[in-house]
């Protein structure tokens, strides 16, 4: 079964200040959606919310076809302890740990998948290197490989190409498209509007509130981008309590 995410009037925030305000809509099963918007628009917050890392201040998230713990989530800044002595192969194979269980042995099958994943992100030959010796971009590719091994129905990527060169970005974008072909649901936060236009059929343009959500051509129209750019980033300490009711979106 394909995974879908339905947001029902969801508000996420920090210390009662909304970062994502009254958002409703659905990431359809098998869709490939980009989330775009200015800095501080709530893009990462929304992904964290879907991944179950933070709870909404109000509203509801409904997942179908996938359990929260089965979501593959690649955060913008992974809390990785880079000095930890672990090889690239071991790190990527950890993506298969749900099959192996917490205590079981990592099987040949998972190791093989890990090797394939490493090859498809262009890291062949790095299998036995300690993760700490990778460059920033290489480390990001290794994390991408781990997502490949996780084999999840729902994949959340936060700025996956931030430190990656154009050749690898092209390779990884091809993987995204392949994932969609396999029926997976992919949601990625991206800044590069050109990449969004070429590779993502649908887009959510976010500026704390939803500016546009639909086919990419529609969502990224100049007037929408202008509206998004006008968003005020700062919170107000004396902002009044939001009175918007259930019907607001």
């Amino acid at each position, binding site marked *: 079964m394909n995974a879908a995410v339905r947001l029902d009037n969801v508000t996420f925030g920090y210390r009662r200040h909304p970062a994502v305000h009254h958002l409703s809509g659905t990431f359809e099963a098998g869709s490939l959606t980009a989330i775009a918007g200015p800095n501080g628009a709530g893009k990462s917050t929304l992904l964290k919310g879907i991944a179950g890392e933070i709870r909404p201040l109000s509203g509801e998230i409904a997942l179908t076809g996938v359990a929260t713990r089965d979501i593959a989530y690649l955060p913008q800044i*992974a809390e990785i*302890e880079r000095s*930890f*002595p*672990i090889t690239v192969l071991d*790190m990527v194979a*950890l993506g298969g*740990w749900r099959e192996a269980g*917490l205590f079981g042995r990592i099987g040949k099958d998972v190791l093989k998948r890990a090797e394939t994943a490493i090859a498809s992100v262009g890291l062949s030959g790095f299998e036995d290197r300690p993760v700490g010796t990778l460059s920033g971009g290489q480390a990001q590719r290794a994390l991408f490989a781990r997502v490949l091994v996780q084999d999840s129905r729902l994949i959340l990527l936060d700025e996956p190409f931030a430190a990656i060169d154009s050749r690898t970005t092209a390779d990884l974008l091809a993987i995204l498209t392949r994932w969609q072909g396999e029926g997976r649901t992919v949601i990625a936060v991206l800044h590069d509007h050109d990449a969004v236009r070429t590779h993502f059929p649908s887009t959510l343009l976010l500026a704390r509130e939803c500016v546009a959500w639909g086919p990419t051509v529609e969502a990224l129209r100049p007037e929408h981008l202008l509206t998004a750019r006008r968003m005020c980033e700062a919170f107000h300490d004396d902002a009044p309590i939001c009175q918007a009711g259930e019907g607001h979106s």
Partner: protein
Amino acid sequence: MDWIFGPFADPATARALAACIALAFGGAPIGVFLVLRRTSLIGDALSHAILPGVAIAFVFAGFSVLWMTIGGLAAGLAVAILSAAASRVTTLREDASLAAFFIISLALGTLLVATFGTDDELLHILFGKVLEMPDAALMTVAGVATATMAVLALIYRPLVLECFDPGFLRSAGLTGALVHFAFLSLVVLSLVSGFQALGTLMAVGLMMLPAIAARFWSDSAGGQIGVAVGLTIAAGFLGLVVAHHAGTPPETTIVLTAGVFYLVSLAVGPRGGIAGRIVRLRHLEA
């Protein structure tokens, strides 16, 4: 030869060596993980934290291995739980809450021993008497080492994940809290067992020094554990020999031997030792 192996003809010294070997297998892997988690000082803090439990047991039951073990475990686990819980429900980080709780515990323990015991007994608890270990103490050390290795084998992968990528462990649904707590319990267990041989202050030395030194010899977690176990056994062996001939207290001599191993590793260790910064090898082609 006799200079080296002669001391072990004395059964007390041989038993002390047996205790060190058990401590090596039980304590060194824990030390390595503490270093990898960048929480090397937690061992030190928890070693102080077990004192009031040991003291209370000592006040009521004298030098009873069983009761001092139970008391130390209870006090150590209480401090570990309280500080872990405090750091999870407040904005304080674990090191801050641990610092607060362990110092309360240490003050309480010192007060108890000072009120009900003698200075000599306080020194015994703080620095241990490795040459006068009763059978029960030796069995405790061996038992804890066995249990620690079994538990470590079981939680090795989640523990590595918790050190390396806690966010991933969280997103995969299993909170790090459980693994975190299991690991802290192992630290306490290891310290309580080490205290039987070396006293509360020196036990942490034999757990941490070889573990820190091992970082200069290996790039893998498994390799570091192996090196640390080897160094701990060597420190116990050499320390006992030197103490026998020089007439120094064996507990501190063992820990100082481990200290020398650390300094040597720091100087010439192939993985980031100082020598590597001075002697510069010519670079490769690719």
